[in-house]
């Protein structure tokens, strides 16, 4: 039940401008066009009254209404994006570059469209105002994705023996093994941090949040957080060096095409590796 106002209808009538502002902000920041932003505002309003104001009845006044509405509408927006585009976890690079980059990555990496098809889909069908040069720049910055699949023994038998490229394969395997070792060391170092420290690092380096936004997310004072993040990087670097991995080697060694298990973990590690 609501602590301060027992009447969700009255609360909504009073806070309608706030609801609209939050909805518009969430949609705009998610890359929606102006028309789509207004649609999202309309759906946000309906969501508030659906099921006898269920959303507002759950508001217990433990946070500000702005924060609560932001979380609720952000979840609504993310859910709608999953329904429309399908479930897909963007790479850390795309997340840092913003919604357009995330969409480009989906079209190129998940849907397998050519660059021409992806650009036409974005600009003609979806109305993104994206110059071709900017599209090319973003596409070039996105990390490659390799899809691993299981094959049966029969299929394996049909694979030809190593030929002239065998040497290159050996080099690639060695590089993958080296990367796997580095990855294991970084996982081990991260496991030595607290959950809060890992979340801080992920928000800062995987999601690309500013230090101010990280502080806002975790309700931490902003100024000390700068120093704390620096110290965390130093600790992580020291832990890696103890295991024989130098921080400077990480970027060179950790390619996202290396065969790690779990894409999200790989991206986390890659993003953090770049930071160290």
């Amino acid at each position, binding site marked *: 039940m609501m602590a301060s106002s027992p009447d969700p209808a009255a609360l909504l009538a*009073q806070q309608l401008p706030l609801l609209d502002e939050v909805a518009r902000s969430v949609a*705009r920041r998610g890359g929606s066009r102006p028309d789509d932003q207004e*649609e999202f505002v309309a759906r946000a*309003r309906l969501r508030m009254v659906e099921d006898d104001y269920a959303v507002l009845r*759950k508001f217990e006044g433990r946070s500000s209404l702005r924060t609560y509405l932001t*979380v609720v509408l952000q979840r609504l927006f993310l859910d709608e994006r999953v329904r429309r585009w399908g479930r897909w976890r963007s790479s850390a690079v795309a997340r840092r570059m913003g919604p357009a980059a995330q969409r480009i990555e989906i079209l190129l990496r998940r849907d397998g469209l050519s660059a021409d098809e992806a650009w036409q889909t974005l600009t003609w069908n979806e109305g993104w105002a994206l110059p071709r040069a900017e599209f090319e720049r973003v596409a070039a910055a996105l990390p490659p994705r390799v899809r691993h699949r299981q094959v049966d023994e029969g299929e394996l038998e049909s694979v030809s023996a190593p030929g002239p490229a065998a040497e290159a394969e050996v080099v690639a395997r060695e590089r993958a093994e080296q990367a796997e070792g580095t990855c294991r060391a970084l996982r081990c170092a991260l496991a030595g941090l607290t959950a809060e420290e890992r*979340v801080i690092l992920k928000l800062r380096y995987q999601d690309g949040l500013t230090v101010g936004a990280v502080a806002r997310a*975790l*309700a931490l004072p902003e100024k000390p957080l700068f120093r704390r993040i620096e110290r965390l990087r130093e600790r992580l670097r020291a832990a890696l060096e103890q295991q024989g991995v130098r921080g400077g080697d990480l970027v060179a060694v950790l390619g996202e095409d290396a065969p790690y298990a779990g894409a999200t973990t790989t991206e986390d590690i890659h993003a953090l590796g770049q930071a160290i």
Partner: protein
Amino acid sequence: MLSARPSDVTTAPPPRCLEADELAAFMDGTLDAAARQRALVHIDGCPDCHELLAESARSLDAQAGAAASKPRLRPWPVLAALAAAAGLTALLVHNPAHSPDRPGLPATPGTSAEARPSTPPARLASADPAAALLAAADPAALARHAWSDDEASRGFAPPSERDQALMTGVYQVDLAVGEAAHADTADLRERVQAGAPARQKHQGAFELGRLVESTRLAAAARTESFFADGSVRAALGAAAAAEPDPGRARALRGVAQALAADARPRPWTAIQSGLEQALRAR
């Protein structure tokens, strides 16, 4: 050097994802220490909650930036502007119970769905916030959204202007019924769709079928005054103008004209039979 912290080792992540109010309280720093630690451990291991936290923080950051760059507005002038935009002042005009000497209805509707204002006329004189909210909802936007959600992914062709106008009309009725019955509008839409004829090849026929069913529901909910406000009439007029089949266009125009004929609410049976005639005309 690094070492595992006992608090992390002993606190298992909660099996369920964080509720919105829990995450909001986490972000505002109002959870107690134990609850905050549980939330942190969960966020650390749950990509969905982590993503929601990151995106919400970005949104709040953007809102703070926007607020800092423009003067603050007091709520009541904003509400007044919203009310004006939603046509709340015209409310009494549309409700015979509140305005026995109502002025004339709006002029003949335009032929384009885009020509209509994005915010439909409000439909209740009540101070009930739910009614005001529903009145401010934009059926045209809902119709576009419904299309992109329900149809585009199944390979249907994009809706014509006529279909779009009809879908808008259907949503007008859905909202009117929801507002009259204070019903859950999502549930209402499902009931309307379930009652409509089986999906037909032509989207317009499907939407018209939904409109017939919506009309029945509106009748049951006694929202007679709704049809007098011109919104559905405008949608039908636009649909008639864009309809290539002369028989159907004539039937649609007939219903629109019947709705515009006088200030009194038309008998439900007349509206319904006109719509059904339009539905059969193809």
